[in-house]
């Protein structure tokens, strides 16, 4: 048992070794890594392709430029970032400016700072203190994201961001990260931020972790972290696929924030995304990557659809566990039992407007289950009608249902069988599920 789970873990989880050797190196060219490692270059390429990024107020490349910098050009709120910073290091967030002399700016932790503080921070950036390569770096001022009201109760003095790992033009796993008191208003997990798994299909949050341990509520509150709907989810996924296609970073971690006014905005690209996203989702990553490997994804919508269909459904599973019922869509594959209890599969339409299930008389005859056991009157659009009733057994989403059903001539209809609400008591119907599933006639 123990060794078994070790073996399974080894084949399904993505470790650092495999990330570097199997995914990062073959999928990401030098150019791709260059784009991901330079925030300014990434922004340039993304915005050229019409993708939403944050506005850059000004850049400072040399000490001379710092000396000549016009401080009056700065707005009262901004962020200051190193171009090649790693893991959120060296980012300074400024929330506002006091109106009294000496006009200090206010940081996230309510500390006051003045021009000389900002200057010394920029000096550190220029020297490459925060740079991934320790080489001289560029500092730039950027517009600050405005926090979405929805996220306000969860985020401690900072902006939550959505991290999505995308491979081969298919978003594979997603997580939203909330800054906490412990992390000092930064959304970085290794500093003590909260990571919450996100269902790929719906954009609703699932499990939450802090410091690699599972938690249920936002710290110090009773707000559940589960079940938060991220707005514009489809748009977020579309941005991910589009950004991957224009930057050609084959194995990409992308950070997206949602601005109160601008909507989803791409913050940063990452060619070596962290792996703790697996803990927040309680799902191994390598499994998913393998399923996407080699797929030919042509359009953005296709990539989004594949992601939603392949990797969605965690919410449903959770719902099924709580309610004890299966979640089904409007079109569902169904297996009808014939007289000898053989299974025959076809597609059914789930119809909560009808009370009783109706099966096509031709199909019933074919399966030899058309022994009429009674008659019932139905009031339909065509007026009062009397329909024969038969015994029927079918399997819907792995559950056996035995019932009495109408038979009617449905040869002209799209589906051989409609399932009415009398037989749906053990299911929950989600009209958004399986919308694209093809029907097939028996």
């Amino acid at each position, binding site marked *: 048992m123990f060794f078994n789970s070790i073996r399974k873990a*080894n084949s399904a*989880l993505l470790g650092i070794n*495999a990330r570097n050797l199997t995914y990062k190196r073959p999928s990401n060219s030098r150019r791709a890594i260059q784009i991901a490692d330079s925030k300014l270059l990434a922004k340039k390429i993304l915005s050229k392709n019409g993708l939403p990024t944050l506005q850059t107020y000004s850049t400072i490349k040399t000490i001379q430029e710092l000396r000549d910098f016009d401080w009056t050009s700065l707005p009262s709120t901004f962020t200051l970032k190193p171009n090649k910073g790693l893991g959120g290091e060296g980012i300074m967030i400024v929330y506002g400016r006091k109106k009294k002399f000496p006009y200090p700016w206010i940081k996230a932790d309510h500390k006051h700072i003045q021009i000389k503080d900002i200057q010394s921070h920029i000096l*550190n950036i220029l020297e490459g203190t925060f740079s991934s390569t320790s080489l001289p770096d560029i500092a730039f001022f950027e517009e600050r994201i405005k926090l979405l009201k929805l996220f306000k109760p969860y985020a401690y003095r900072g902006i939550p961001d959505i991290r999505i790992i995308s491979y081969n033009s298919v978003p594979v796993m997603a997580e939203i990260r909330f800054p906490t008191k412990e992390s000092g208003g930064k959304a970085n997990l290794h500093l003590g931020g909260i990571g919450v798994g996100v269902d790929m299909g719906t954009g609703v949050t699932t499990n939450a972790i802090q410091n690699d341990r599972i938690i249920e509520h936002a710290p110090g509150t009773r707000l559940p972290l589960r079940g938060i709907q991220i707005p514009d989810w489809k748009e977020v996924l579309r941005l991910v696929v589009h950004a991957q296609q224009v930057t050609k970073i084959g194995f990409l971690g992308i950070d997206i924030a949602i601005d109160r006014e601008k909507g989803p905005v791409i913050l940063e690209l990452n060619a070596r995304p962290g792996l*703790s996203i697996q*803990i927040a989702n309680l799902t*191994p990553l390598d499994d998913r990557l393998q399923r996407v490997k080699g797929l030919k994804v042509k359009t953005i919508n296709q990539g989004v659809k594949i992601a939603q269909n392949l990797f969605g459904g965690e919410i449903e599973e959770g719902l099924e566990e709580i309610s004890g019922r299966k979640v089904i869509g409007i079109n569902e594959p169904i297996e009808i039992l014939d007289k000898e209890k053989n299974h025959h599969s076809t597609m059914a339409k789930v119809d909560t407007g009808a009370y009783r299930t109706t099966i096509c008389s031709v199909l019933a005859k074919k399966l030899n289950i058309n022994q009429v056991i009674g008659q019932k009157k139905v009031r339909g659009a065509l007026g009062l009608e009397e329909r024969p009733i038969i015994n029927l057994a079918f399997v819907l989403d792995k559950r056996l249902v035995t019932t009495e059903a109408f038979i009617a001539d449905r040869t002209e209809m799209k589906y051989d069988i409609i399932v009415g609400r009398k037989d749906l008591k053990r299911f929950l119907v989600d009209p958004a599920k399986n919308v694209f599933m093809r029907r097939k006639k028996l």
Partner: protein
Amino acid sequence: MSFITQYMINQGVPQETIILLLMLPIFTTIIVFARQIIGIKGFGIYTPLIIAFIFLATGLKYGLVLFVIILLIGTLLRLLAKRLRLLYLPRMSIVLIGITLTILILLLGGAYLEQKNLIAVSAFGILIMVVLVEKFIALQIKQEAKKTIILILETLALSIICYWIASWPWFQNLTLAYPLWIILGALIVNILLGKWTGLRFSEYSRFWEVIKNIEPAEKK
């Protein structure tokens, strides 16, 4: 003893030089193994390696004491120098000068108290240790304290393991007897380690919640 090493020693190459040279591939392999299989990060390959060699030169006891003293003084000086608001390199240079001063005082104290072992500690060991401080301090500036301490401890642990192996007489004789096999073996092990894509030991504990979750998910 192998023919090659025997010949070199007869011609006047110091035995210690040969042993230290042959230890290098062993050390690098240990460090690579610790990183790729166990998940002990340390400071790249250079730092644990050079500290292990310093320990061999100074002895473990004095080496460790020196290391801790230099690190503490370096950290203290960094915090003081921070207030001067200087550029990085001059600031770092000031920190190193401060450490040199401390070590001189330490040696003076050792001379006064007639601590023969302390004053006889290898000069090169001390110098390299002082220079290494730059790496640790650069890390302190970048990352939070907890992570830095863990990295330093990991580096020390690696160096001490390397030190033990290199000062093990049986192993020293082994390297002298089979110098080529040692190098070839280290090469092959490194090629294999370089292709290893499995999980590191540390990752099993890191992802334990996920691993627990794989099993029930498959039963459904």
